[in-house]
């Protein structure tokens, strides 16, 4: 995985497979402390304690199409290489929350990548799931969700022109938010 947006797409796919109806994606960046916490929370089927333990084993997967499962091990790798960590909270029937912590002043911190592009694809391919996204930088934030778009009457989520517009909307707003960083770490 080259950037965090790829991780986001990857982890959210797990929630979709767990038949979640609500998925909350959160990026909490603390510019003063140089920390970034990226989390995905869903109300899907959840996992047993034993499954959670096996998650960081790359040769564990619930799929039948192949024998390896690298999504979580990669996430663990990119966070741990910055001195961060991954936490998983889950229970059968009570959904799952995955939190990956990054230190943004570490040179191995991977870039954020095209969050807008990936989010737009998620919105368009999963209209029946309420996906909410929030990026909080210190005290300011940018939020977008399926529900919010629908409430504003924006419902052609899989129309090509609308998708380009939504992507541009997200990326422009994030770009503006990022100008408010007062310290420069390695996150970009």
């Amino acid at each position: 995985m080259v950037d965090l947006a790829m991780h986001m797409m990857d982890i959210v796919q797990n929630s979709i497979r767990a038949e979640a109806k609500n998925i909350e994606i959160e990026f909490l960046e603390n510019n003063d402390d140089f920390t970034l916490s990226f989390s995905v929370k869903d109300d899907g089927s959840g996992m047993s304690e034993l499954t959670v333990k096996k998650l960081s084993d790359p040769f564990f997967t619930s799929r039948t199409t192949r024998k390896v499962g690298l999504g979580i091990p990669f996430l663990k790798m990119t966070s741990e290489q910055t001195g961060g960590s991954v936490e998983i909270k889950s229970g059968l029937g009570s959904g799952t929350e995955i939190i990956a912590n990054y230190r943004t002043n570490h040179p191995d911190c991977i870039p954020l990548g095209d969050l807008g592009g990936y989010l737009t694809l998620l919105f368009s391919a999963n209209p029946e799931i309420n996906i909410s996204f929030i990026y909080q930088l210190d005290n300011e934030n940018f939020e977008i969700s399926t529900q919010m778009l629908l409430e504003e009457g924006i419902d052609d989520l899989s129309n090509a022109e609308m998708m380009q517009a939504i992507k541009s909307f997200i990326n422009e707003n994030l770009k503006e938010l990022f100008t408010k960083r007062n310290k420069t770490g390695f996150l970009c």
Partner: protein
Amino acid sequence: MNKIKTLADLKRMQENVKSKVSLRDKASRAEDLVQVKVAMATCGIASGAKEVMEFFVVELDKRGIEAVVTQTGCMGYCFAEPTVEITLKDKDPVVFGYVDTKKADEIIEKYIKDGEFVDGIIPRNYETIK
């Protein structure tokens, strides 16, 4: 395209799109449309499935082909990612491997438009010949 920054811009865009869409005929029964499924698991994402999916969305619309572009999980062909499954009307699904934007263009022009097979098909649905 103008930069879209505020929610108002986005709403205006939606109204625009709505008026355009209502002019077009809606033959929109899902099974009548071309269905494009892009594999979006760890393997697909890491090899650039997003660019391929965006390409299909934009280009199919530009070339006036009504299609549903959506995501699927890993189909087990991680070595050949990005993979794309295409279902034309009344035909069996066909899986293409090693799809980059150049290949995607070829698939649209030859397979989707004319039904002509192109290189890179992964034999997935074997049927016994009786």
